[in-house]
């Protein structure tokens, strides 16, 4: 066996895969060739060094909590054992599932997506481009999406912006809505709203820091009702609900229709608190009330925590120069901002979670 052949057998022999006669020939060569013997020694030593440098490591004690907190912070839901922001919803939905004959899987899938939609499938008439939005009526049903850049750029990109620049006012009405980001595939990841195209990296450096949205420090709580209706025709009932909501100036998020095959629709509707009573009654009349649960959630703490995260991320983003890190940070910032804006809006409104089943 020549050196060349011997060297080529190294990988196989390291894995103990040489046939006995090959192995013999190999060893014989090594016995006669100091160079190959040395090289073989080095190969083995490398493997041994790697294996011996393995340190038994364990995750830190509070690792699982950290994961849950990270998930909670991104979704606005604290998925802890003892409850959290939407534990009431989960209990409510679970009760509804127990009472009604619907597949748990499909309902659960809907709950996984609760409050996580970026854009509604049903949208109120979008505002005209260049028409300033009235500050008193919050944008119904629109996902509040911050501008990517200050409107110093003259182009009005086709994202349906209003003239009002994003000065980060707490009122959501100054923020231009973004079109649906195509978020109807059941994905839970939150994606940032579409921005004007950046074609090369140098543009990123040139863009001035985006103004962060400003949020007031105040107690916030979300009042809500879970209304579970049995209806003859789910699609029809949904249309009726949407019409009622439209008449009362409510905003709607249609949840993903679960693909489990069961006839269930879940709608999240935000309405002016003053009209909450009337609205809920009208919805209830669309079918047979299987379950109703009223809830009031104090989200002040969650809001504060998310706000802190948001501000910390912005500070980091302002220091960051690496484009890939920037992209990651921008994603996180956008999703937190989405959550904060949504909470801000929801705290001012009354939310009805309408579950329609056949």
């Amino acid at each position, binding site marked *: 066996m020549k050196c060349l052949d011997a060297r080529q057998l190294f990988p196989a022999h390291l894995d103990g895969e040489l046939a006995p006669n090959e192995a013999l020939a190999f060893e014989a060569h090594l016995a006669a060739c100091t160079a190959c013997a*040395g090289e073989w020694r080095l190969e083995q030593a490398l493997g041994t060094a790697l294996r011996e440098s393995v340190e038994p490591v364990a995750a830190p004690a509070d690792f699982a909590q*950290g994961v849950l907190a990270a998930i909670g912070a991104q979704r606005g839901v604290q998925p802890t054992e003892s409850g959290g922001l939407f534990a009431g919803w989960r209990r409510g939905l679970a009760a509804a599932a127990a009472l009604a004959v619907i597949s748990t899987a499909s309902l659960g899938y809907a709950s996984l997506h609760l409050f996580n939609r970026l854009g509604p499938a049903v949208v109120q008439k979008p505002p005209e481009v260049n028409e300033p939005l009235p500050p008193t009526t919050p944008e119904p049903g629109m996902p509040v999406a911050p501008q990517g850049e200050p409107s110093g750029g003259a182009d009005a990109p086709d994202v349906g912006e209003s003239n009002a620049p994003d000065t980060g006012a707490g009122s959501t009405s100054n923020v231009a809505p973004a079109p649906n980001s195509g978020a109807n595939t059941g994905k839970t990841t939150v994606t940032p709203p579409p921005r004007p195209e950046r074609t090369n990296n140098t543009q990123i450096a040139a863009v001035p820091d985006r103004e962060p949205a400003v949020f007031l420090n105040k107690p916030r709580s979300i009042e809500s009702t879970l209304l579970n209706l049995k209806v003859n025709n789910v699609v029809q009932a949904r249309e009726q609900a949407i019409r009622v909501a439209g008449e009362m100036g409510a905003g709607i998020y249609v949840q993903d229709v679960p693909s489990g095959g069961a006839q269930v629709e879940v709608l999240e509707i935000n309405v002016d608190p003053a009209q909450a009573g009337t609205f809920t009654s009208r919805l209830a009349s669309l079918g047979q009330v299987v379950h109703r649960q009223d809830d009031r959630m104090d989200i002040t703490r969650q809001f504060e925590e998310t706000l802190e995260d948001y501000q910390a991320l912005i500070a980091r983003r302002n220091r960051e120069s690496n484009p890939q890190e920037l992209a990651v940070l921008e994603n996180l910032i956008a999703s937190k901002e989405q959550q904060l804006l949504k909470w801000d809006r929801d705290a001012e409104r009354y939310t009805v979670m309408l579950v329609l089943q056949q």
Partner: protein
Amino acid sequence: MDDVNKLVRRAQRGDADAYAELVRRYQDKIYGLGYHLAGNHADAEDLAQEAFVKAYYALGSFRLEADFGTWLHRITVNLWINVRRRERPVVSLDEPVKTDEGEIQRELPGTADGPQEVLEQKEFQWFVRRALRQISREHRVVLVLREMQGYSYEEIARVLDCSLGTVKSRISRARIALKEKACSLADEAGVVLPGREYQNDVEPGAAAEAGRRA
């Protein structure tokens, strides 16, 4: 596995407790993988946490016939390969070599005329770890999975979602890359790696040729 599948199904339906339990069951493995890939605890924690968060969001796409642990490993590996974070600074040559008697400052033997010393085991290991940090991420991944986590070729193929043949050739090339890197680091330091004392006796061109053919 059935137990894990139950947890995964529950987690897919939004049961946070179930997901918390899954995290607890796999955290050491994933953290360990992260640690050996990234080389330090801080990055390992970031990477592992990110992997579990990403897995949570991707639960909907996880098919229950697959192995959850393998899936987690794949997410971790892909995260590490694809998301290039600023690497913490590579250990410098002045890093003291740890011995049982305490840390000693390593002294480089003179390269000019003095005899080159063959590295002792612990120093050699230090070179190898450093070399591991400097080869490409694709190569590092397979070496960590194979030599450090001890996975079989089949398991690695499942994690990387490629064929057995690809795994074998990737590991082969990774070993060569590691060896070359370790040797060049050694040359810089003026030391000789074990086995290389008699380099001159090899048939001319054999080493390079073997490397090319692998």
